[in-house]
């Protein structure tokens, strides 16, 4: 019985979230993932080579001209770097110097960008960029966007937490595009890399994820304490529920049969002082058979064995279920009283009903 109590009170706690989980889970399946991930607008440039600085240049080859700042000079100047990448920032060859980065790009990282030819440090992390880099962020954003026909409405430097990128822990540039789905292009300020195109479909998906993960503080994580506690309660709810179903099977209250066998029983009701006959499936519960035949019987809980109101008197000695023993006194049990929800039609041939209380 204690498990039925747990089932009830735990459901009081989790029922709202249960609907949120199933609803958001269902709707997440309907999200257009191609659109939500920004793949339909985001163009990744294939990495360009540096041949224009070196190829077919026999003169420089002989003279061993060094176009780019040498590695050892870089290391001298930036002694903490752990990895060096030669790449392009828009059209300008640059060194991307990694000092530290986590396994995921969104985690806290530390990079320096250096002009590969002049060795000058490029700082894209200040809200007002140096004059020579002023148009850079917009140019990077524009080339990353598939179509060219939309205007840019706003360029802002954002510090975490960032609403559109809940997991991001680094400063990013937000470039808003004036398209139908309100795309924002995000560029990581330390590296100049395009992180993502976030549009209305992305925001809808992220809202659903936030609800599904109970990430109400917007940490971008499902390892939060709200969901841990609720998940434990939900496990308690489903395991007590399954235990209940198991008991119903074990007590013979649920029977899976291939065809319906009917049986006729006699019902003597004190309310009408009449004798009736009732024909019902042998494997249905006495309570349900009485109710479907419009015979007056109280059943506050509807047959869960938790209220103890559906008392009847059997003509034969019946087994005493846990619910019977809880709700019916020893004297009454000896007289043949049982709960109608706990027994099947096939167990009896006559049913006696006392006067209803309050009538």
């Amino acid at each position, binding site marked *: 019985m204690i498990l039925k109590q747990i089932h009830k009170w735990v459901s009081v706690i989790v029922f709202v979230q249960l609907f949120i989980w199933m609803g958001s889970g269902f709707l997440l399946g309907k999200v257009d993932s191609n659109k939500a991930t920004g793949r339909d607008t985001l163009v990744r440039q294939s990495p360009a*080579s540096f041949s224009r600085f070196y190829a077919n240049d026999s003169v420089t080859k002989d003279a061993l001209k060094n176009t*780019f700042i040498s590695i050892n000079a870089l290391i001298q100047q930036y*002694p903490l*770097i752990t990895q060096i990448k030669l790449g392009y920032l828009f059209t300008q060859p640059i060194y991307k110097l990694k000092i530290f980065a986590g396994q995921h790009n969104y985690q806290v990282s530390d990079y320096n960008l250096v002009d590969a030819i002049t060795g000058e440090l490029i700082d894209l992390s200040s809200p007002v960029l140096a004059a020579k880099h002023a148009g850079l962020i917009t140019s990077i954003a524009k080339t990353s966007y598939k179509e060219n026909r939309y205007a840019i409405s706003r360029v802002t430097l954002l510090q975490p937490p960032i609403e559109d990128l809940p997991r991001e822990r680094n400063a990013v540039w937000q470039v808003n595009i004036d398209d139908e789905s309100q795309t924002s292009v995000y560029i990581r300020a330390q590296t100049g890399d395009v992180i993502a195109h976030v549009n209305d479909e992305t925001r809808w998906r992220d809202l659903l994820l936030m609800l599904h993960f109970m990430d109400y503080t917007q940490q971008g994580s499902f390892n939060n304490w709200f969901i841990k506690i609720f998940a434990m309660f939900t496990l308690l709810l489903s395991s007590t529920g399954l235990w209940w179903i198991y008991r119903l099977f074990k007590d013979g209250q649920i029977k899976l049969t291939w065809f319906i066998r009917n049986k006729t029983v006699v019902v003597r009701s004190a309310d009408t002082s009449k004798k009736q006959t009732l024909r019902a499936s042998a494997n249905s519960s006495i309570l349900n058979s009485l109710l479907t035949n419009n015979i007056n019987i109280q059943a506050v809980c509807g047959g869960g064995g938790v209220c103890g109101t559906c008392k009847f008197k059997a003509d034969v000695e019946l087994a005493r279920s846990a619910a019977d023993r809880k709700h019916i006194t020893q004297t009454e049990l000896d007289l043949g009283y049982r709960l109608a929800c706990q027994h099947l039609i096939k167990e009896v041939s006559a049913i006696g009903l006392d006067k209803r209380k309050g009538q």
Partner: protein
Amino acid sequence: MVAIIRRYHRWLMLFVGLQFLVWSFSGLYMVLVDIHSIHGEDLVNAKQPVLAPWTESYQNTHKSTLQSMQQKTRPSISTDINDVLREYPNASNISLGWLGNKPVYRLTADGVIVIDAATGDIINSISKDLATTIALSSLDESRKIQNVELITDNPPSEIGFRPLPLWRVDFVGINSPTLYINYTTGEIVTVRQNTWRIFDVLWRLHIMDYYEGEDINNWLLNVFTISGVLAALSGLILLWFRLFKNNPAEYPT
């Protein structure tokens, strides 16, 4: 009416009840075990050593920044990036990083090329010994290796569609960590350990896509979700009656 609702609740839960248990158990596992530890982030050391080969005078002037670093002597970089580019003018994706305890250039020019930055030699492939060294140097703790194996075909499902060949390095331990190392570049491609393997299985059970583990819009899941909502709704009505309509005298038949 309550009796009808109770029957609906019972029969619907007879159908979806077990999946409710699966959802709540797999969900509980996924939220309890930290996702970063699942990804092996506390297993594989993300902190790479600095590239600079320190000299004594340098150490003296930068003592504070060097205190946390390993004090091993490292090979100095004698091949410059400009030398590499003269050799491979069409190269793209050029980087200088670590291969075990060697600084190397990695670049793309008709395939991936790895060049030892100390000697200028091309490293054609990763030997078993080198794979072992890489694996050991990237783990935080000193662990024991159980098995090192080159996978050329029949990849295990946990590495997905990652290109072969790969070195598979299995470690001893309750969590059975495995590192997969690229045969050409020596980079760690991915990590798997039992907490992740369990996560993968539970994820498939959670989304009811038992084969691919990807489709969160499959018909089975949709059928169970809709039945689940109906089952929970019938439960909610029962809860309402049990909490607020518990007086037999007021209760109509």
